[in-house]
């Protein structure tokens, strides 16, 4: 009975040991052969990948593979609960990371950076103002110095001019004095020379007249010389 059952179901005895054992142990409750075979076939088909051979097993594997190849895995509704469950777990985990770690940290960093940038800009503005002030002060100092220099130069120039004028005036005066003096001396010399010329001319004329052997009175000679000298 047991041997017949396994043979008709096409199952190797060593693979499915429990069945013959069970059949032997419950000898009294054995049911008709056909039914047992049908039961085994159904069971093998349901699992699909059991270690069965012959027609039953082959059909079962074929049916299994056919079901996978026919439709898209996306439409295999038996995997939906699994996917949805793990998706929700993932979303909660990411939400946890985002809300507890990412947002506080990045928010704080961005705020801090914003603050730093604002502060830096403000201090840069302040420094710029100070630089402008310093530049203005520098310009003012420069202008003052230039004005002062100009003033000093003008002053110096004026004083030098005054000195120069005074010196020139004095020099002119001295020159005038010297000139007058010299003119007087020249006039004197000239007057002296004139007298000398008259004396010499008179003497010479007297001598010439005496040499010619004539005598001439002094008055006539003097008059003739005067006339000549004037001429």
């Amino acid at each position: 009975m047991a041997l017949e059952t396994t043979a008709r179901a096409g199952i190797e005895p060593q693979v499915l040991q429990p069945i013959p054992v069970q059949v032997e142990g419950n000898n009294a409750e054995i049911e008709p052969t056909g039914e047992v075979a049908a039961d085994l076939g159904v069971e093998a088909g349901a699992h699909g990948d059991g270690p069965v051979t012959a027609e039953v097993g082959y059909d079962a594997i074929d049916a299994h593979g056919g079901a996978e190849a026919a439709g898209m895995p996306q439409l295999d509704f038996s995997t939906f609960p699994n996917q949805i469950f793990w998706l929700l777990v993932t979303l909660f985990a990411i939400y946890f990371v985002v809300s507890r770690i990412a947002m506080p940290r990045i928010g704080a960093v961005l705020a801090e950076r914003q603050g730093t940038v604002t502060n830096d800009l403000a201090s840069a503005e302040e420094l710029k103002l100070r630089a402008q002030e310093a530049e203005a002060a520098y310009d003012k100092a420069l202008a003052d110095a230039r004005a002062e220099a100009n003033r000093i130069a003008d002053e110096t120039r004026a004083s030098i001019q005054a000195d120069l004028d005074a010196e020139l005036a004095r020099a002119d005066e001295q020159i005038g004095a010297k000139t007058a003096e010299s003119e007087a001396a020249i006039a004197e010399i000239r007057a002296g020379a004139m007298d000398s010329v008259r004396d010499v001319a008179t003497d010479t004329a007297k001598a010439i007249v005496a040499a010619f052997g004539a005598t001439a009175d002094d008055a006539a000679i003097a008059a003739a010389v005067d006339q000549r000298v004037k001429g």
Partner: protein
Amino acid sequence: MAVETEAEEGGLVFHPLDQFIVKPLFGDGEIHWYTITNVTFWMALTILCVAGLFALGTRGRAIVPSRMQSVAELAYGFVYKMVEDVSGREGLKYFPYIFTLFLFIVFANFLGLIPTSFATTSHIAVTAVLALSVFLTVTILGFVLNGTKFLGLFWVSSAPLALRPVLAIIELISYFVRPVSHSIRLGGNIMAGHAVIKVFAGFAAIATVAPLSVIAIAAIYGLEVLVAFIQAYVFTILTCVYLKDALHPSH
């Protein structure tokens, strides 16, 4: 994105969708809701990446940021500005939720681009939950904040009176289509891209077209990198738009 093609009986056999199969990590058997599957693994990696970027990256809290901190701040600023620009200042209250969505999608998309990985966002189950949660939150929020005035969203007061009922029906339909388009846009994009890469990989088994196939894979991979970011961006900005509708329902 497992690149595996089998040449059977002289013909090419493509399994472009095998990469999307959800399987248990340990042993095999039925997949219960609590079973640890490849979904669990890749979602856990997503969490690790987010935690790594934000916990380790911002560890220094430096005023002058390190590279990682710059990236974290960039992501934060990107989404923050998006929420502020699209939803207005009132929307900033919901920034953490939107940021969570963005981070999950962007990291899941990019992790899905690693060869042989599993793209969690390619599954309609995942994107539908994301889109439905946005839809329900926005709808409930709209009614809680505005009461029945929220229905003004469907009553276009600037249109002629005769047209308004027609427009209301159109608006109503478009409102309820939102979660569908919102979820399928993301899931479909990711799935299609990965499947196309797989199909091209299948052609690589033929020696004569193999070089072309490899070039095509490289090109599509580049496109997918773009898509991975753009879809995360689009999902997030649409969430902001829907949020704006809930905050200011008048047209």
